[in-house]
């Protein structure tokens, strides 16, 4: 493999505490090293910013519901198709791009690792086929557990060990990465036309509450010692007043401590917190409760969050929270797709337009800005757009612009039709904090890598770590004349290296890299009871056999990277 040395760049690396010093980064055999030979290829990064490859903790980029969006929204591809060019294959789509475009767009922005946030276990083969077809970036997928019949039956009887054995089995056969929970109990209730809007609403038939599901899964997750914590999308998403449910959910993590060998410290990751920080009683008196939520998270070190920034675009919402999507289609009267996934979960898809001239959308934008600006520890708050729910991931540079420049935020607030309402219902007007490049590296690299338990692998530039490096055309020594320059610089990297292979040069794809699928192999003691239960459920209820369920072999996961966990 070739050797590289990236010279004279301003390096920002929270893993080593480097805050913009001029430093050379050496790459050899796919890893960051202390030094390389004189034959190494020199990359001049004078006047540029050098960071580790960014890590995406939560995006919907592969699998059946993403594809449902692609199928039923041909208009999303209108005017966005790009033909074959050099190394790039053709691609298209704005909020739900094709797999190839997804890989290229992430790489061009300096992202080298991404997590598919909700994998229906029954369709894991489809998810892995799409992951396989997404070039360059390393990917993992979170199977959903919050409405799973096995989990609800075991946890109803407080059988944490059996739950853990089932999780270990399911993550192994679906090649999953972490335990994801979406609207615990609520999606199952949706099969009865109901929902669970608080942590104490009982799930029909199973007679268990969301609170019991959440605490049981935290215990099972820590029993196994998985790299990532419980990754939760709580109940009551997106409704005025939902912050109370969010706080009730966060309080369930109290008293739990992380137990793992991956350096992770949290036991719960609250995802797209913007959608969970709403106050008020209806859309008229809708207001921000970002302060209440971030105050709680600031005080409790065993929780991490990501933002879910609204980017004010036309997009496609898609979530395993089936009842919420039904509620949403009632609000905007656009098309709706609903999918039931047998014993495991469900999902819905609805197009949505976040219009700057609608006050609710503008307030949502402001809440998404408030959360990262109010979080004291950037290592526990990560930038996402919950792609594509609050906006496409291709808008990250714009979100970074708004976070790094109070001037850019002010310009956006002034452009809103209901500016006064935004200022009265949120406290965005009083926040003048500007995120520094070091904090940005924490929020997009070191932080999410640590939360995912990948801290020895990616998110930093320490010798021994994977050589995932992004070089941006951004000079931290010079004052920013125009905030749009920030967006431009973070849109297209000067150079991107993925595991030591140069994949992007001057914003163009030059290699498809060697993408890997990250998955966790958790070993547990033999558990004949769980194996018998699985057998029985497949015979009685599933529409497919166990042999057709597993995502195995070279076809689905051609280049795996396995994180071994031993809980025997």
């Amino acid at each position, binding site marked *: 493999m070739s050797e590289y040395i990236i010279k004279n760049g301003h390096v920002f690396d929270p893993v080593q505490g480097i805050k913009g010093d001029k430093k050379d980064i050496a790459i050899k055999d796919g890893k960051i090293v202390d030094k390389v030979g004189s034959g190494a290829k020199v990359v001049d990064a004078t006047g540029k910013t050098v960071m580790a490859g960014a890590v995406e903790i939560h995006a919907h980029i592969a699998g059946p519901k993403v594809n449902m969006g692609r199928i039923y*929204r*041909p*208009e*999303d591809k*209108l005017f966005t198709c790009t*033909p*074959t060019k050099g190394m790039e294959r053709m691609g298209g789509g704005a909020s739900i791009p094709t797999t190839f475009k997804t890989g290229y767009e992430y790489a061009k922005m300096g992202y080298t690792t991404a997590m598919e946030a909700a994998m229906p276990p029954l369709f894991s083969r489809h998810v892995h086929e799409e992951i396989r077809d997404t070039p360059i970036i390393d990917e993992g997928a979170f199977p959903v557990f919050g409405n799973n019949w096995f989990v609800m039956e075991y946890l109803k009887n407080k059988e944490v060990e059996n739950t853990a054995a089932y999780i270990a089995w399911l993550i192994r056969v679906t090649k999953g990465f972490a335990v994801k929970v979406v609207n615990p109990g609520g999606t199952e209730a949706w099969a009865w036309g109901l929902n669970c809007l608080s942590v104490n609403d009982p799930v029909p038939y199973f007679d268990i509450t969301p609170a019991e599901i959440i605490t049981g899964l935290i215990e099972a997750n820590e029993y196994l010692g998985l790299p990532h914590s419980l990754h939760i999308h709580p109940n009551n998403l997106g409704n005025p007043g939902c912050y109370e449910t969010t706080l009730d959910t966060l309080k369930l993590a109290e008293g739990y401590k992380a137990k793992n060998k991956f350096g992770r410290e949290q036991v719960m990751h609250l995802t797209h917190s913007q959608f969970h920080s709403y106050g008020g009683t209806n859309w008229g008196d809708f207001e921000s409760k970002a302060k209440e939520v971030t105050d709680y998270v600031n005080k409790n070190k065993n929780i991490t969050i990501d933002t879910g920034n609204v980017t004010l675009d036309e997009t496609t919402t898609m979530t395993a929270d089936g009842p919420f999507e039904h509620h949403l289609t009632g609000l905007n*009267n656009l*098309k709706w797709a609903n999918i039931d996934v047998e014993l495991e979960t469900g999902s819905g898809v609805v197009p949505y337009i976040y219009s700057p001239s609608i006050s609710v959308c503008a307030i949502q934008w402001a809440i998404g800005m408030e959360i990262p600006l109010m979080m004291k520890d950037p290592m526990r708050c990560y930038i996402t757009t919950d792609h594509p729910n609050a906006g496409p991931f291709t808008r990250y540079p714009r979100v970074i612009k708004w976070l790094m420049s109070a001037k850019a935020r002010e310009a956006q607030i002034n452009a809103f039709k209901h500016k006064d309402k935004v200022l009265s219902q949120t406290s965005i007007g009083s926040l003048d904090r500007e995120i520094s490049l070091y904090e940005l590296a924490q929020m997009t690299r070191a932080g999410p890598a640590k939360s995912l338990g990948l801290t020895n692998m990616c998110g930093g530039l320490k010798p021994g770590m994977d050589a995932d490096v992004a070089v941006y055309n951004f000079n931290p020594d010079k004052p920013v004349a125009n905030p749009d320059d920030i967006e431009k610089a973070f849109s297209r990297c000067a150079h991107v290296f993925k595991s030591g292979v140069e994949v992007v040069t001057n914003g163009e794809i030059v290699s498809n890299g060697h993408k890997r699928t990250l998955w966790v192999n958790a070993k547990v003691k033999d558990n004949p009871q769980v194996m018998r239960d699985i057998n029985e459920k497949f015979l009685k209820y599933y529409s497919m056999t166990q042999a057709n369920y597993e995502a195995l072999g070279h076809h689905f996961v051609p280049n795996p990277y396995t994180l071994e966990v031993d809980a025997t």
Partner: protein
Amino acid sequence: METVTITMKNPPALYLEADNVSPDGFAGKTAAQIAELHVHEGNTTSTLGKYFEVSGNAGATAADTKIIVKGDVKKVKYLGFKMSAGELVVESSMDQYAGGWMTGGKMLVKGNADAFAGTAMKGGELTIDGNAGNYLGAAYRGDWRGMSGGKILVKGNAGSDIGMYMLGGEMIINGDADVHVCTHAEGGKVIIKGNCKSKIGGQMVGGTVIVFGSIDTMMPGFKPSGEAELEVDGVKAKFSHYIGDTGERKKKKKGQIVYGDLYQKI
């Protein structure tokens, strides 16, 4: 006004997407520069000059430019795509998307235009001397935003699904129309001087359809609402008035269900 004439010399084997052929695409360019504009045949990108003979330079702006397309363009799509001003004349029949997404200017097709002519059109005038295909002035596949402004005149007949998701503007068909007129329409006006087949105005929540001839079968959601005397396109006549689609339950306005109007000449 400067005139550019492009004449088909090498008809494409596959369909040709010529979305640059509009006064906006040509404005400020010489004949040689116009010949270098991109077109797509199948999955390959090539230049306009490979297929067309170009003569004449364009004006400085779109408004100063007139384009005449000569020769056989039956396999060419997207002529007049997104045009905002100026004039475009197609002397024969063309394929899909004539004047799609146009916002202004005048476009004339002297032959027939295939499906999706005037798709999501916002302004300007589109005249088709021959027949129009399906989805005239409709929304793009999957989209819910159809024609919202401007004027379409078809001197021949039109196909099915015309004015689907129509939001505004006016459409006059001198001949007959096929099934599914103004499905999901929320505004605008469609005048059909000939006859119509069935299913007119399904799920319509606004807008007007005026039919001079016969309607095969009326949608069950339309109910009679008396008679009205209207002056349509210079013709004064008595019409029976229907409102509908009363089967549509979605509320488009706050707390109020709104219906479209259907008039048929007595």
